[in-house]
């Protein structure tokens, strides 16, 4: 046991822990009241609803052709590329000739899946394994602690690189995005499991758990009703950090590839794949060079805004949910 799990769980005082998830006991009115006093959660949920509706809209509009972002050769001009205008509301990324708005819209379902998917999956695996490890302290604990000690020691952007390119040849091209998401979940779960395990260890020794046990609750009921709900706080602290971790990989590798002709390092199937990080990398690469004084601001500003809005949404939802569930 090495890291910072001790600190994360330590912030939650005993009384707070007992108050968690006591929401069921509350009336509808109190729930609404708590929601009103939690503007982060409301704002975050509204943003989330926005992203989901854009994503669904894009799916309906483009269907199976969603990934085929059109590249217009005529727009890939080096001089005076089209900026925001009625024809292209958010301008065009030259070099590839991609309409920024269309790219961002088409990218929404992919990013919700590529970034949201691994985080949800990792939180699910990490939350369950961490709780069980902290509660049972058996061989599951040994496996969870050992695996996370190893995985957390390797910078995650390097680890995903090694794992992804190690197995990518086994996977047909259409399934490679799924592979990327699954591997990222496989890398990230220890970041959730470690602090959850530490908190579960402490929660398992709490008086209310002892009381439930004395009252004859089964092991299963102890875990699912008492330990698990009170050990999940670290998930909300970690999720916003992982939005950064995943976008780092999605953005930096295409960006480095933009300067190194040797690089074929992308997890995406095509150069102009609709994915916010990829669009940002392309935009920064073609739209901005301090060496030659080129600055086509719209090429990188709008993709960046999409990423920041998404990260802000996750931050707000997580902070708000944490606050809501802990009853603060």
């Amino acid at each position, binding site marked *: 046991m090495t890291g910072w799990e*001790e600190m994360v769980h330590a912030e939650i005082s005993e009384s707070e822990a007992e108050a968690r998830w006591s929401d069921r006991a509350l009336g509808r009115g109190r729930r609404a009241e708590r929601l009103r006093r939690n503007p982060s959660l409301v704002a975050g949920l509204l943003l989330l609803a926005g992203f989901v509706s854009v994503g669904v809209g894009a799916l309906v509009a483009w269907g199976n052709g969603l990934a085929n972002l059109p590249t217009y050769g005529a727009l890939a001009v080096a001089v005076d590329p089209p900026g925001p205008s009625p024809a292209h509301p958010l301008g065009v990324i030259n070099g590839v000739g991609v309409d920024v708005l269309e790219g961002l819209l088409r990218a929404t379902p992919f990013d919700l899946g590529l970034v949201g998917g691994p985080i949800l999956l990792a939180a699910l695996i990490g939350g369950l394994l961490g709780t069980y490890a902290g509660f049972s302290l058996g061989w599951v604990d040994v496996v969870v602690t050992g695996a996370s000690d190893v995985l957390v020691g390797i910078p995650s952007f390097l680890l995903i690189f090694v*794992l992804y390119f190690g197995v990518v040849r086994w996977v047909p091209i259409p399934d490679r995005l799924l592979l990327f998401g699954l591997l990222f979940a496989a890398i990230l779960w220890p970041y959730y499991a470690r602090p959850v395990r530490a908190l579960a260890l402490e929660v398992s020794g709490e008086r209310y758990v002892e009381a439930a046990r004395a009252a004859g609750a089964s092991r299963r009921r102890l875990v699912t009703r008492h330990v698990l709900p009170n050990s999940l706080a670290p998930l909300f602290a970690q999720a916003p950090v992982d939005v950064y971790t995943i976008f780092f990989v999605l953005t930096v590798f295409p960006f480095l590839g933009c300067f190194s002709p040797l690089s074929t390092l992308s997890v995406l199937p095509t150069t102009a794949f609709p994915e916010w990080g990829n669009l940002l990398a392309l935009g920064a690469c073609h739209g901005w060079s301090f060496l030659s004084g080129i600055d086509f601001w719209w090429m990188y500003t709008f993709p960046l805004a999409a990423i920041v809005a998404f990260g802000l949404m996750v931050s707000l939802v997580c902070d708000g949910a944490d606050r809501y569930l802990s009853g603060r």
Partner: protein
Amino acid sequence: VTTTDPGGAPGWSTLGGSENRSASTTMVGATVDQLVWEGCLGSGAVRTGPVVSEEVVDVATVTGGLYALNQSSGRILWHRSVGPDPTTPDVSGGLLLVGSADGNLTALSAGNGSLLWSEGVPGGVAQGVGVAGGSAYIATVTGHVLALNLSDGSTDWSVSVGAPVSGAVALSGSTLYVATTGGSVLALSESDGSVRWERALGSPVDAAPAVYGGLVVVGDRSGNVSALRADDGALAWRWSARSLVPYDAIASTPSVSPGRVVVSTDLGEIVALNASDGSLLWNQSAPYSGYPVTAGPVTTPGLVYAVGGATLLEATELSTGAVAWSTTLDGGSASQSPPAVVGQELIVGDDAGCVVDIGRAGGPPAWPVAGVVVTPSGAPVAGAEVAADGDGTTTGTPGTFQLELANGTYPVYVDKAGYVERIFELTVDGPVTNLSVVLSPLPLFHLDGRVTDEDSGHGVAGAVVDLQGEDGYRASTVTDRQGDFEILAGNGSDTLDVLPPAGYGEAELSVTVDGAALSGVVVPVAPSGVSVPGGDPFRLDLLLPFGGIAVAGLGLWVVDARARRRAAGLPPAILSRFGQYVAMRLALIPGEVVAVLLILYTFGTFLPAAATGANLCSLSGGGCTACSWSDPACVAGAFGNGFGTFLVRLVTGNWGFASYGALYEPAAQLLAWWLPDSIELAIVALALSVAIAYPVSILSSARPDSPTDVGSRLGSTLGLLVPSFLVLLAIYGVAYGVFLRVLGDSPYGLVPSAVWLFDHGGNPSWVGIAGNTAPTGFPIVDSLLHRDWAFAEIAITKTLLQAAVIALIYVAIYLRHLRGVIARAMTAPSVVAARARGLSERTILWRHGGRRLLPTYLLVFGSTIPAYVGAQALVEAISNDTGLGTLLLTEVVQAPSTGFGFLRGAEPSGNFYQVAIFLVVLLVLATRLAADVLARYLDPRMLDEVAR
């Protein structure tokens, strides 16, 4: 105003041929490299371009001699002294104008050299003079453009262009064009100097712009060729020489002719671009490679002339880039001005102070003798020498050649290495157009082999293998990454000379080829006393003192701890609780290391090999009996063998080669060179991070939801989400201009950058090829040791800039992890007690809270160290600066194309990217261990938390 010069008297009367500096002409130029005359002036090197007008060649030497020579004989007509470092003269209407570095513009009579007037110009005159109408136009080193009255030298007008100018003014129509070292191109009105437009290029321009066909074309120190529209300065296109050679720069004027722009670069490329869109037509580098081509190229309708490679003058076909002819200048040339073309001649000055006229002068009429050299089967032979009667050439790519011969009968000599020499008689009495020469190849046989390390037996990559046959046949090749080479050898006895990369001694081997191909020749080379292939030894012994200090400290600490336990009456224990914790953590490390190695090997080497069905034996570097992937026992054995080989290579430092830009060096060597840079940067960046994170976190914890708290939370969220390379580029974008102005260097790239080196006359002697410094390897420390303040200045500034970006990124991550845990410190009993004692909130905050937080900070540091390593690696890589991060990311980015572990030839069981990642993991593990242990040493109560 002169534009091009198609119709008028043949002349090359000013810098670049005409006032528009296009360095192109419709005259034929020298199509053969026949020497017409050579005259040595004996007055110092000739570094300006000669100009020719009315059959008179005017040329200036560095010591200030101005000479007028007869164009047909080279005889000196008159000479005069005009002041040091004169510019290329300008001859117009019987008047000769020349500027000099001591700040004079002198007007002489072109006929006899008599002085008409001389006018002081503050700061000195830039490379050339322009004349139009009744005025002379010059740019000055102090950043002004002046118009002087031709009749008496009085100043008509003078305007400032904002930055020093080192190239001449170009004229076209009623507009003057000037490019500055501030990186701008300006168009000025000829009549009053008012600015018509100004365009910033972002990088200094050192030579005159060329104006032709409605375009203003300039090359800059960042290697860009930019074409601006002459009427409004809009960028028509831009092309970067760095797309061919990293760090290349352009210091000469491009040559612009119909449809083509030809430029010469500092790193020895001659490049032809399409004038309409800037696309690359061809580039030619071999003979110049690595030498600056400082004189701009000159184009005629058929040929491009360039001086480069110190002594080489070469003519290249304009349409194809094939070499038409080349010759050496005895004295070498560092000329900054192009040669002059007149009629069918080319006139150029050299560093020995001689002027050479090349081409065809009068004499008996010479006929073109054109033909082709082919093999008996009819295939053209390129690169064959063809010579007759003192005229010689080399066949071009389709095997064609052209000589110029007068009437008569000559022996013609044709030869090429690897072919049987041919001499035949040829009678010339008119043009010969279809001469076909058959050249039979010498009997040659394939010879292949491997250069190996005498001790370990592994292949040595990058060794030059020279083969010399009995008949003077020579061939040369370089070993590939496995150390293998393949070469054609002549029949009989051949000698192989092997020149391995640094770290090995040369070797020589005789082989006999007996009418058949020969394979499996092994040339062992002996390592010259180093443990790392090809480089300085890895100085592990330097770590010994640190190890000694650590052991001694540990011993003292154990003795002291035991004494204290005895004094406190505690029961004797082999290890204290703290000792037990340290031992437990240390015991975990080997397991973690093996697990990481297994992951790296399985995913980096084994699975890719399995996916492509590679030979199983290749995993362990050969030497096993082949077996198939369908046999589980065999696969398991191969996995074990391969992993063993991987481990052995890892531990013995046999890490293969790593490349970065033009560098291709043993990975361990690059690591030894660049690791100190990374350590230096880490020290500065971590100090900066602490300086930011400490007060921000304490202030935000003191008042949750205060502006500081909300600001730091928002800042850390944004800091996380805005990709770090954008932060980096934004900071560089802001700092770039300041950097160039103040330090004369770009903030981007190796220290020192090519730009800086250009201005400071090359590398200090203590800086190596990879930007590595001696003796300590820490650039800042070394520059201070050598008292090289200019170098120290850029090293410190760049380190600070990079550290600032790292701190920005890392503090965001750090604060995110710190949030939540920090508030607890302010409710700790010690704080409550302090508050009860009536201490001020400020004292409580900084004395009690801060002190109590230190161990917590260490714990968070321990868990975020992978994120820190990532941030620094990225900043180093994006900055293109030396360091472990650059090495790591370059390797990682290239891994899919250079091949994963098993594909990488000489290192079938490993690849440097795996080693690099492993080293990073070791670093992370060690730092985490140190941080966790130190935190528990400072706050032993944490041991209780672990126990629970």
